[in-house]
């Protein structure tokens, strides 16, 4: 658990889990969700003659952050919880922020969000972190942090 959470009494406990995978599939008949290839690193290989310094490198493979939320007893029937997904690069800079609404329709107690990230622009080697935050009051507080290593494949 990230250090921020240990003494933070404001966390709502609506967040259940978050997982990074290459893709997920949702069976709409049975409502089952399957996660395919849970990942924590991306290896980049270069074809012969590729000029690595010529232009910024973009990772063009999509991956998914699947995040699971549960409504609290005291929440109203039709309730929307604000969350935020941040992509933090190896230097610690936040390279992308995506605010999202987790919508609990009436009779819905839990929601699974499949956030499809269509690659990374201007990639840097090292460890990226995907930070999952929820809105408590006016602030977004972190509830999960998932590492993703980006490495060069050495043949």
């Amino acid at each position, binding site marked *: 658990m990230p250090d921020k959470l240990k003494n933070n009494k404001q966390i709502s406990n609506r967040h259940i889990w978050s997982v990074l995978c*290459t893709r997920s599939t*949702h069976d709409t*008949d049975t*409502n089952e*969700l399957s996660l395919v*290839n*849970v*990942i*924590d*690193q*991306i*290896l*980049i*290989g*270069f*074809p012969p*003659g*590729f*000029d690595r310094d*010529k*232009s*910024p*490198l*973009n*990772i*063009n*493979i999509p*991956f998914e952050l699947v995040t699971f939320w549960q409504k609290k007893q005291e929440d*109203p*029937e*039709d309730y929307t919880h604000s969350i935020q*997904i941040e992509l933090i690069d190896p230097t610690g800079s936040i390279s*992308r922020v*995506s605010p*999202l609404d987790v*919508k*609990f*329709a*009436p*009779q*819905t*107690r*839990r*929601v*699974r*969000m*499949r*956030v*499809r*990230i*269509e*690659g*990374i*622009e201007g990639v840097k080697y090292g460890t990226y972190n995907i930070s999952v935050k929820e809105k408590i009051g006016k602030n977004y507080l972190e509830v999960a942090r998932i590492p993703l*290593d980006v490495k060069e*494949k050495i043949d």
Partner: protein
Amino acid sequence: MNIKTLKEKLLLDKDFADAYYQKDLAFNIGQQVFLARVKKGLSQERLANKINTKQSGVARLEAGRNLPTVTLLDKIAQALGLELLIQLKDVSTQTYLIPIAQTQNSPQASPYFRAESASAYRIIKQ
């Protein structure tokens, strides 16, 4: 006050919410009947004759004005050469897919990528 806020306020009332979601179901059923009838090339009057009712009754059903009985739906399904399938679905967990951010394609020959798990793991057998 906008529509969204008004709807949220109204749905706090249980009686209103019950009536609202029943209407939603009636509308969904009406839509399905309408689409199935049109696909079969039948007019409302012809379908009404097949199920021994009036054209106005079919029109009200398709408009979602009332909730039909299962018996009536079964008659409609048979009249359209279809099978009525009733499914009880758990909606306590919803799933949404949200795509975010597109990358620009690199003008160079593309490097290749492989996503994998580097984590060590143990299989625990009991």
